[in-house]
């Protein structure tokens, strides 16, 4: 669906019609149109293969040609390697690793090479690539298809990590990630691809700077920090908390690495009560670093210990009740808000 069509439909209808998927697709089309140095590669990515298994890249190969937009064999090391190589000589490849768990077969290319070549070459080369990858629980895909692994990449110097939770941020972050001079892991939450939450597709000038969190709701009692699907759950929890008279400041981190210390510390200073939520396993997750920094920087100033919610300490289970129990949800986030507000 072209963006003008979508926008007209959006204007006509009362309900939002724009999805994250549509925003990502437009971001890619706009970026490819503006910069001939952009390339894209990944499994089933080109139009003869359906333009991506969920259509995020639909239309790209038809519009920009098979030289620039290519479906690949199932060879993630070859995919990331090809992206790295082309990026060393002036191209800006957007590579897709279909699901985040599959980054495990390409960690050498991502960590030992993409993240380190600028440093190891003393700045002679750089790797301006974007690695798009989908993940997230909710569809019963089980233990090998739904992990959030952002903490691994945040621990590696030389690579950035982002994850949008709205169509606007999906567009603005992807454009910024593509324009960034360094490698970026771009995480897309698969189960919410089709949630229509906006009325209009962002304009081609829209950008969201990397490293800048969004205060999606201002509040004074409790700070809730989250990202990706957990930001959706946190928005719901924050609204419910308001009904109970608890004023929540809701921060969507948007960039996991480097995360926005300034915004986080300012809010934590204001509320003195912080809840951090992510879908990834709680232990050694992104929340650990954020909690450690807040506890150190605001030592003696917090009203309550920083509270972390995360995935249970197990692989992601298949069975519906187990899958629902594994990741935090609005209800448990609300409970944490209420507890910490006491």
């Amino acid at each position, binding site marked *: 669906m072209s963006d003008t069509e979508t926008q007209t439909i959006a204007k006509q209808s009362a309900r939002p019609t724009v999805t994250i998927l549509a925003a990502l697709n437009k971001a890619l089309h706009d970026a490819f149109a503006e910069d001939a140095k952009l390339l894209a590669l990944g499994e089933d990515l080109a139009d003869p*293969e359906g333009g991506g298994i969920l259509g995020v890249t639909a239309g790209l190969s038809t519009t920009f040609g098979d030289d620039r937009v290519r*479906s690949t*064999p*199932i060879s993630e090391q070859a995919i990331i390697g090809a992206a790295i190589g082309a990026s060393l000589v002036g191209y800006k490849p957007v590579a897709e690793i279909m699901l985040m768990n*599959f980054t495990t077969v390409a960690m050498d290319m991502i960590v030992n090479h993409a993240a380190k070549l600028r440093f190891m070459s003393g700045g002679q080369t750089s790797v301006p690539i974007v690695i798009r990858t989908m993940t997230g629980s909710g569809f019963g895909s089980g233990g*090998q298809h739904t992990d959030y692994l952002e903490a691994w990449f945040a621990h590696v110097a030389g690579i950035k990590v982002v994850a949008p939770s709205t169509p606007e941020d999906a567009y603005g972050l992807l454009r910024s990630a593509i324009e960034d001079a360094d490698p970026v892991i771009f995480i897309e939450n698969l189960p919410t691809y089709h949630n229509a939450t906006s009325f209009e597709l962002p304009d081609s000038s829209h950008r969201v700077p990397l490293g800048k969190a969004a205060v999606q709701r201002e509040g004074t009692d409790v700070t809730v920090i989250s990202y990706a699907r957990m930001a959706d759950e946190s928005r719901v929890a924050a609204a419910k908390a308001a009904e109970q008279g608890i004023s929540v400041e809701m921060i969507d981190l948007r960039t996991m690495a480097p995360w926005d210390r300034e915004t986080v510390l300012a809010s934590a200073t204001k509320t003195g009560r912080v809840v951090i939520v992510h879908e990834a396993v709680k232990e050694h997750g992104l929340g650990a670093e954020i909690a450690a920094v807040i506890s150190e920087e605001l030592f003696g100033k917090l009203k309550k210990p920083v509270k972390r919610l995360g995935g249970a300490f197990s*692989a992601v*289970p298949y069975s519906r009740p*187990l899958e629902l129990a594994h990741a935090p949800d609005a209800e448990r986030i609300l409970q944490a808000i209420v507890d910490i507000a006491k």
Partner: protein
Amino acid sequence: MATNQFIPDSATLLDIYRRAALLKANDERARKVIVSGQLAMVYYPYRGQEIIPSAISAALRDDDYVCTIYRGIHDMLAKGFPLRPLWAELAGRVTGSCKGKGGPMHLTYPPKGIMVTTGIVGSSAPIANGLAWAAQVDKSDRVSVCNFGDGAANIGAVHEAMNLASVWKLPTIFVCQNNLYSEHTTFEKMTGGQNVSNRAAGYGMPGVRVNGNDPVEMYAAAAEAVARARAGEGPTLLECMTFRFYGHIFGDDDAKYMPNEQKAKAMENDPVPILRARLISDGIATDEELAKLEAEIEEQINDAVQFALASDWPVADDLRFDVFEKEIAA
């Protein structure tokens, strides 16, 4: 290439059909149960590929090992995975073989040698070698069958595994089920050399491309590979040509990437009814006998589905168990 000793006799052909009929009926039921809304799951139909594991399993013993992939329920049923724990796992119940923790993509049943089902393309291969290594150290003559797809042939793990199996002379049988598609991408588009079996020579192991839908050819090739493996002569790569009738994931619109004629032609040559007709025309079985067999299969599936849907769901506390040998503290 198959010498006479490996040509299946009448009893074996009937055995192969018995398995194939079960596989076919179970795939049809799975799709029906999803469409009817009785059960929601991500399902990878194997309809059209039944002859491959049916013929291979006819050449195996219960104590031989099998590793397979997300599209692998045919491999499991052919090897003897019982229907009740299978369906209960698909339904995510505590009575499932994996207590509902694994699901369709990680079905496991060690009593029949079904050791690993992986959702990661190619990852069945390195693990299958380990099972083969164990058989070698045991001085048993067990073999380890490793199933993967045509697309998986291009991933690193499969290459490393075939080379190691060759240098260690492991009793691993690499079964590439070539259904001409990887998700939405054609075999031609992703395969240098347009052939998987030819790669075996590069590792110094035999490789053969067979019509995986032909029970005689398929059984002969499998039996020969099994005999080599049991005799300590090392691994074999079997590229089994076939086709999948219902797309990558049940529900995906394969018209988007697959020519209708190609699919129609493949479905006209549905290997299961063809084998059925052959058994009758060759006088190996009568229509009545086969109808009875098929009716029994439907009954067994009915029983398993009812058992599954009547079983209890796991509870949140179960997450603390099976992470490590000792449960995680509450």
